[in-house]
């Protein structure tokens, strides 16, 4: 048998059930792999081997007594912005240096209730702001994939959930949690050849997740297969009275829909996503996805999402506005960093703490957000953006009158090198051009790999579903996964 870390989550679940392996053995195999590979990747930034082994042991005991959760004994990674009791949770920011929450986020509580084992906390862009995992206080996370024509170059894993993506791709966890505000689960999934789903806004409780933009933030799983994503989302999601935007809708059995096929489904291809100068490899991957679904009995229909081009600028008004408000709490009073000199007053302390504690991208977004919310500019920027957001959401409602699920590329390119796209913030923002519209509309959306580029890097497709219809996304994704047969791991892992 190859290393047990190379199984899928579902295979590991079955091996545990068949008593072919124990959770302690599975966990130890992952801890060994992390020790070996993590120094080159910087995917895990806080290691919790003692917690992992204790949880694994407890899981094996529960199993012996017949109590088996959905993720019983399964080792996973947790993105650094989930508050985990007694374990550093810093949203990869210097301003939360040493912060150890006294409480557990709802999502991690749910995961532990279902038997998951925490290997550690994963790297990310600071406060989830970024598309390359290059703004982390822990340093860059490195993509385990290498370009065939330039293997010496370090590539980004995407962002913001770059550490979770790199960990899952490098077989350092069966699943890792991500959060997605404008594409932070889906774009890194695409860059690392894995599956990532951002469920409908409200499916996963935001309680205990360090906030970036509250009207957009949503947690979801990152895994190596569609089935694994379904199992994991089942464990993470569900109504939570502690989050007033948590959805009351009942959770369907996501795994049960896997394999249902796409016969008779209508797949929407939005005209507006064919952007000028699009990378031909991305177009080819998109066409391949549509051809697979058509061959499997789905009908391909062209749909229109007329306000697509305004989604990015809308997002870059609303997300900074919400972040400037959410991040006001980091002031050196209640937690994290405090910077002040003798004789400083309260304002000096606030200003020095925030100047030293936030990185450049976070400061830029707080400043933009403060400006668009300031007196005199609120209507021109913030309100106008909210109105355009309404039009973007309406576009999807119209499109879903003609189709059941929408197929698009995930990102405009394969993974780029560290240093690329860094001179101009707007160039970096364009990475999320295909993922942001679904975020603004609060719709479920999944990234999954379909093949490799000429450079030998993963290319991803993106499926957007109706609100609370993750099931159609899952069953469509599974057909693409099965027919495309993507079965590649980064070399050396």
């Amino acid at each position, binding site marked *: 048998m190859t290393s047990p870390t190379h199984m899928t989550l579902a295979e590991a679940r079955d091996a545990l059930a068949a008593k072919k392996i124990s959770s302690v053995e599975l966990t130890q195999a992952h801890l060994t792999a992390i020790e070996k590979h993590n120094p080159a990747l910087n995917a895990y930034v806080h290691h919790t081997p003692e917690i992992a082994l204790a949880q694994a042991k407890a899981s094996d005991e529960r199993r012996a007594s017949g109590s088996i959760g959905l993720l019983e004994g399964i080792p996973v990674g947790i993105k650094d912005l989930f508050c985990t009791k007694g374990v550093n949770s810093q949203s990869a920011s210097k301003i939360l240096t*040493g*912060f*150890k929450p*006294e*409480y557990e986020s709802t999502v991690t509580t749910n995961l532990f209730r279902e038997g998951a084992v925490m290997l550690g906390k994963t790297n990310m862009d600071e406060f989830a702001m970024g598309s390359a995992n290059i703004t982390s206080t822990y340093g860059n996370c490195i993509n385990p994939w290498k370009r065939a024509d330039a293997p010496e170059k370090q590539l980004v894993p995407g962002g913001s959930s770059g550490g979770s993506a790199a960990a899952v791709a490098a077989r350092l966890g069966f699943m890792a949690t991500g959060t997605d505000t404008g594409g932070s689960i889906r774009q890194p999934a695409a860059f690392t050849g894995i599956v990532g789903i951002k469920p409908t*806004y*409200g499916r996963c409780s935001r309680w205990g997740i360090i906030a970036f933009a509250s*009207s957009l933030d949503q947690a979801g799983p990152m895994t190596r297969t569609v089935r694994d994503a379904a199992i994991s989302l089942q464990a993470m999601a569900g109504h939570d*009275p502690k989050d*007033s*935007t948590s*959805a*009351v809708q009942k959770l369907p059995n996501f795994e049960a829909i896997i394999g249902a096929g796409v016969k008779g489904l209508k797949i929407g291809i939005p005209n507006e996503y064919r952007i000028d100068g699009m990378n031909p490899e991305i177009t080819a991957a998109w066409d391949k996805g549509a051809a697979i679904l058509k061959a499997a009995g789905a009908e391909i229909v062209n749909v229109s999402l007329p*306000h697509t*081009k*305004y989604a990015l*600028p*809308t997002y*870059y008004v609303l997300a900074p506005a919400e972040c400037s408000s959410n991040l006001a709490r980091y*002031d*050196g*009073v*209640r*937690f*994290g*960093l*405090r910077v002040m000199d003798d004789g*400083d*007053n*309260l*304002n*000096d*302390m*606030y*200003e020095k703490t*925030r*100047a030293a504690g936030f990185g450049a991208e976070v*400061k*830029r977004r*707080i*400043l*933009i957000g*403060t*400006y668009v919310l300031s007196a005199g500019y609120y209507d*021109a*920027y913030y309100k*106008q*953006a*909210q*109105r*355009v*957001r*309404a*039009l973007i*959401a309406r576009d999807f409602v119209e499109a879903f009158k003609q189709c059941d699920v929408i197929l698009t590329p995930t990102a405009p390119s394969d993974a780029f090198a560290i240093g690329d796209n860094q001179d*101009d*913030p*707007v160039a970096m923002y364009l990475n999320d051009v295909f993922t942001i519209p679904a975020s*603004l509309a*609060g719709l479920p959306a999944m990234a999954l790999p379909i093949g490799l580029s000429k450079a030998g890097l993963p290319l991803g497709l993106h499926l957007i579903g109706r609100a609370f219809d993750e099931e159609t996304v899952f069953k469509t994704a599974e057909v693409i996964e099965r027919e495309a047969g993507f079965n590649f791991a980064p070399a050396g892992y």
Partner: protein
Amino acid sequence: MALTDKEVQHIAKLARIRVTAEELPHYAKEINGILKWIEQLNEVDTKGVAPLLSVSDQVLPWRADVVNDGNQQEAVLKNAPNQQYGCFAVPKVIE
């Protein structure tokens, strides 16, 4: 309409982030670049469109008006950079 260095300084003051004189032109240039790009939103005709505040059509839930948590002083103060007498300690506010 581009923001001047002085205006950026004012925004930084509102955001309680200290920005040095040397950093100002850099921030001003980047912020102006982003704002210019954002201005394309003005092309969109939004007459009669209500601003979207939340994608959820759920009515905010009510809960019973009862104490359901508390007595957590130690936990609340645990991460404080400076605490005294069971309170968060900050520089003197009143002279």
